[in-house]
């Protein structure tokens, strides 16, 4: 109990970038097709990946201070829906990102952070398989037409990271396949 309390008291000290702004997620507004690449098991030296498609739609809320998106996919033949809530705190100039999904009926601990040079990094402490980990969300909007989200876990206080999920996003109708379909 003391050990847990002691470890838990080591807070992540997260600072905003100098450029952090409530417009940093504007690039994500609207509909997207997503190609997902997900590690089969986590923190287990696994190198086997599963791939699946998903759809996402993001809209701004709270008079510009936040946004939500809905995420639709099929896992093992079952429809799956996820929901993200992103809130910008004008005082701390940090984003907090919350996640809930149709398997998990609670709002997950938010990851917190900001964008710098088109890369957003967001962190939180969490528990995985009973062990303390740090979760990182990474948003790469270097190419705003093809943003990439990825997630990594660290079980050694941030020294090493295992990437376990990539989402490659494209606007609907811009993939080669859809271009052919739309040509008619």
């Amino acid at each position: 109990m003391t050990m847990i309390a002691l470890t838990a008291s080591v807070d992540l000290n997260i600072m905003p970038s100098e450029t952090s702004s409530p417009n940093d997620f504007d690039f994500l507004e609207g509909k997207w097709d997503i190609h997902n690449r997900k590690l089969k098991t986590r923190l287990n030296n696994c190198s086997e990946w599963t791939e699946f498609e998903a759809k996402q739609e993001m809209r701004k809320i709270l008079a510009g201070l936040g946004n939500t998106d809905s995420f639709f996919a099929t896992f093992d033949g079952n429809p799956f829906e996820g929901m993200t809530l992103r809130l910008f705190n004008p005082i701390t100039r940090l984003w907090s990102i919350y996640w809930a999904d149709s398997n998990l009926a609670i709002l997950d601990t938010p990851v917190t952070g900001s964008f710098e040079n088109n890369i957003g990094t967001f962190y939180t402490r969490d528990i995985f398989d009973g062990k303390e980990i740090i979760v990182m969300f990474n948003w790469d909007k270097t190419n705003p037409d093809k943003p990439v989200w990825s997630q990594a876990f660290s079980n050694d206080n941030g020294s090493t990271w295992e990437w376990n999920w990539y989402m490659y996003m494209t606007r609907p109708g811009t993939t080669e396949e859809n271009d052919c379909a739309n040509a008619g």
Partner: protein
Amino acid sequence: MKTILSTRKIPLLALTITASLLSSGIFSQTKALTKMKMTNATLTKTGKLKIVPSKTSSQNDFDFLEGKWKVQNRKLTTLFSNSDDWTTFESELHMRKALRGISNVENFYAELNGKPYEGMAIRLYNPQTKLWSVYWTDSNGGTMDEHPVTGSFENGVGRLYTKDSFNGKAIIVLYQWDATDPQHPKWSQALSDDNGKTWEWNWEMVLTRIA
């Protein structure tokens, strides 16, 4: 530094007072202060709030709220000061279901000093505990309340509770949804600063369907 984060907060001075509503008599609570026992919720000896679901609690209990509503609001001007001075204003409420039925999202739109105010509720039903949790955030904040109100519906009335603090004092927050008249559902909020014995109602919303 927690001050009723889980309640709908609107700066009072900024509200538009609609005088015609004051006499419309749509609001049910005449006095703010009432004696009332908690339903499906008790305080343990250690001061924790123990909330159990009603026998009928279901993920469909908020279905009545789906769609778009015009909302007449009545809000107590000052809290915990025996005030009977109410402010009224109109707003709009949009609700849609999410997460394959175990969740819904409400957007709440009002106007303050000519500027748009927007709030948002996320409601999640936990099939294991059979309890609803309601999280609230708004365009003043930038954070989500950490203590969602939690509870369930019984005989058309939903009561959801959480512990919070107000001006440094421990309080219990109640959200009550009365869906017994599906044409005009009512939401009201009460706070108790005496461990749930007496409650001060401080906000009431009466809904009329637009779409």
